[in-house]
């Protein structure tokens, strides 16, 4: 089943892969039965009623009762499958509250990861077992798609906005990361490894390498150097709103709408400030489109998220841990 040269089933390495496989197996059995039923009927009819001397067709008109039966029964079964599939999807699309965040920038043709602790990796993503991980992704150019078959998750990565995938790895090992959306010449080369590690190993991986600030600290640096702090102050005197604690809270806009200040909102506020103007403020914030790189936007977002009176989770608090040279870790297959 899991042979390396002729596998028939993908590795199962996330909390959702078991449930997805369960529905898949259910569908295999259901559809297998349907196939057997239909094919048997066709073969039996074709043999039993084959054209031969002395055999004549017997006219049959059809029957409403039969038609309704084989309309309603499949419809009922389909609705069950729909609910089951939608239930899984709901889980796949709803990240748990205190997850650890990894920022991802996809570009032709590589994956760049930024850990909140400050580590950066290319085409390789190290994560611990048992931790809910949110991958917050954007693309620098065309649409890509983040796909880890062993986790049964896939999410397109779009330019100009964040999309989010989440998973909880359950088995240590190295798994394929594929780009699943055609993105030009080297689409099939836009692959990498997801390395799932035991928590202790992961901790030592985190502390390896030379020291460098956390992502939020990098963000703070960008925040100051771009002059964001001239308008956004930690009091109410600034020309722009105080950003302390804004993340995750509802924001009342000038046009009367209320939006939740999630990653996409913060991102948009930086790159397209005129689209959603906070109530009570003038649209004086300049756009930083073309001035900040995607990596810097991620750092800014991480910084603004870290500005929380009560930190949401350990991942968000600035810590002093260095990045690890990704080659230094032990690879497991």
């Amino acid at each position, binding site marked *: 089943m899991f042979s390396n040269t002729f596998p028939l089933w993908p590795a199962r390495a996330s909390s959702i892969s078991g449930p997805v496989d369960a529905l898949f197996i259910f569908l295999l059995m259901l559809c297998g039965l*349907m196939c057997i039923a239909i094919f048997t009927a066709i073969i039996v009819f074709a043999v039993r009623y084959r*054209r031969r001397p002395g055999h004549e067709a017997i006219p049959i008109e*059809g029957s409403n009762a039969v038609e309704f039966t084989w309309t309603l029964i*499949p419809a009922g079964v389909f609705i069950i499958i729909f609910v089951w599939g939608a239930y899984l999807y709901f889980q796949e699309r709803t990240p748990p509250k205190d997850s650890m965040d990894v920022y991802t920038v996809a570009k032709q043709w590589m994956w760049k990861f930024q850990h909140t602790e400050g580590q950066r990796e290319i085409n390789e993503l190290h994560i611990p077992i048992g931790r809910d991980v949110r991958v917050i992704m954007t693309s620098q150019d*065309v649409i890509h798609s983040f796909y880890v078959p062993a986790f049964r998750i896939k*999410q397109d990565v779009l330019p100009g906005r964040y999309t989010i995938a989440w998973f909880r790895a359950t088995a240590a090992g190295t798994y*394929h990361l594929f780009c*699943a959306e055609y993105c030009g*010449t080297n689409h099939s080369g836009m692959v990498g490894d997801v390395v799932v590690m035991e928590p202790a190993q992961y901790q030592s991986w985190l502390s390896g390498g030379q020291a460098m600030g956390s992502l939020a600290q990098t963000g703070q640096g960008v925040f100051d150097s771009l002059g964001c702090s001239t308008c956004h102050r930690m009091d109410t005197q600034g020309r722009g709103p105080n950003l302390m604690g804004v993340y995750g809270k509802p924001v009342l806009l000038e046009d009367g709408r209320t939006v939740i200040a999630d990653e996409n909102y913060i991102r948009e506020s930086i790159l397209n400030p005129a689209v959603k103007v906070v109530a009570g403020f003038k649209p004086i914030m300049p756009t930083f489109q073309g001035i900040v790189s995607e990596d810097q936007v991620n750092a800014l977002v991480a910084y603004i998220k870290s500005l929380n009176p009560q930190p949401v989770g350990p991942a968000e608090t600035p810590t002093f841990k260095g990045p690890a040279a990704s080659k230094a870790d032990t690879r497991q297959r």
Partner: protein
Amino acid sequence: MATTAVALSERENYLNKEYGITSWLFTTDHKRIALLYLITITFFFFIGGFFALLIRLELLTPEGDLLLADTYNKMFTMHGQVMVFFFLIPAVPAVLGNFLIPIMIGAKDLAFPRVNLLSWYLLAIGGCLMIYTILSGGVDTGWTFYTPLSTHFLDTHVITAALAIFVAGFSSILTGLNFIVTIHRMRAPGMTWSRLPLFVWANYATSIIQVLGTPVLAISLMLVALERIFNLGIFNPQLGGDPLLFQHLFWFYSHPAVYIMILPGMGVVSEIVTCFSRKRIFGYKFMALAVIAIAVLGFLVWAHHMFVAGISLYAAMVFSLLSYFVAVPSAIKVFNWTATMFKGSISYSTPMLYAFGFIGLFTMGGLTGLFVAALGIDVHVTDTYFVIAHFHYIMVGGMVMAYLGGMHFWWPKISGRMYPEFWGRLAAMIIFIGFNLTFFPQFVLGWLGMPRRYWQYSPEFQVLNVLSTAGATILAVGYLLPMLYFLWSMRYGKAAPENPWNGAGLEWKISSPPVTDNFDETPLVTWEAYNYDELPQEVPVGR
């Protein structure tokens, strides 16, 4: 032999009425136009098939070695564009539909014969643009033209390719319009809606989609071209555009287009199954309703191509549910074909072998549709070989089987000659085996996680890819055979009688090949469709 040949040439029919190239290029006879289409799409089928073979050869090994990455990307792009827009969409409607719809409803021609000719010219012009695109270096957007890749990141022949499809689209719109008007206005006395052959119903439903859907495709391709030329910000997020908007527009047409490609095939199978079982269709009303239901519901499911594209959670749920609704009428059709065989007198003639193949492969394609419509599973298998296998089971296993079945069924009528039955059955079997060997392994590959459009892949996928490539070579042989013996039969085939299968439709009540006006006098229809119980059971040709 010699006497039949003389007899054939003596009788005047649509083929020997006039000779010379202009008598074809300026014809308004729907039957001759059908043959123009036949030649055109056969040509494109083999071009698209050639690209497919190159793709399969490249995938024989995990490394990208036979072609360059860019060349490979062009191959799958143009394979898709050629097969979808220049073969599958016109295949049954423009060839068999053109030939048969007027005859089946007892008319002399389509409602607008000259528009019909124009439709063919549009397809031909689109085809020339496509050939130009291919010869001048090709295009590598993927047949889906996803933005912003297609608009800002490629410098291949995107605009000519888009234009080719744009022009061919108008051919499709005009054909659809022509069919709708013809079916409404030109039915012979007594040919009520409830007596229409299901082939006509299927093409009617298809025409509705063509007329309503194709303009949206034209618009989206035009926007791609405009964005490329004038650097507009419709899809480009840097200029405030939305790349997902393109996907919505594209799939708003291209999902229904899937039904443009399969509904006419369903119509063909209904004709074949009844004739070779000597039975009325089981549940006529439900079969007719089902095609209309598919055409209508087919417009409401486009975003099921976008479950991981970044649409909202609840939108995805609605589109998933609607996708299950559209599966219901498809299931009804399969059940009714099967029930039609019950207590029939079933022949194993070539067209029927194709119909068996169609039902089997369409069933598998449809059932795997239940997998991809299930949101939680689609997340894993979308954009992998699972989806490739799924839609090839429908498009190739379904539509191409039906198309070939129909070509064999009506070849005696079209050409006035019989094809060699032995070779017919052999080719049908080779195609069935080759098809399954090509595409079944792809389901496994997709479930394992091999993404589509990969030029090189991880070594553990190789065994399945080798199987698939082996199947593709068998399939290629299977497709060449009919072309060879059809050509052979035009000269050496036995002369076809008026009604070789003892079929019930109006097309079997006129000579083979038909005269230009189809009927000597307008027929009066007094019987229900598929009245096989009122026809003799023995059949002149075939068993």
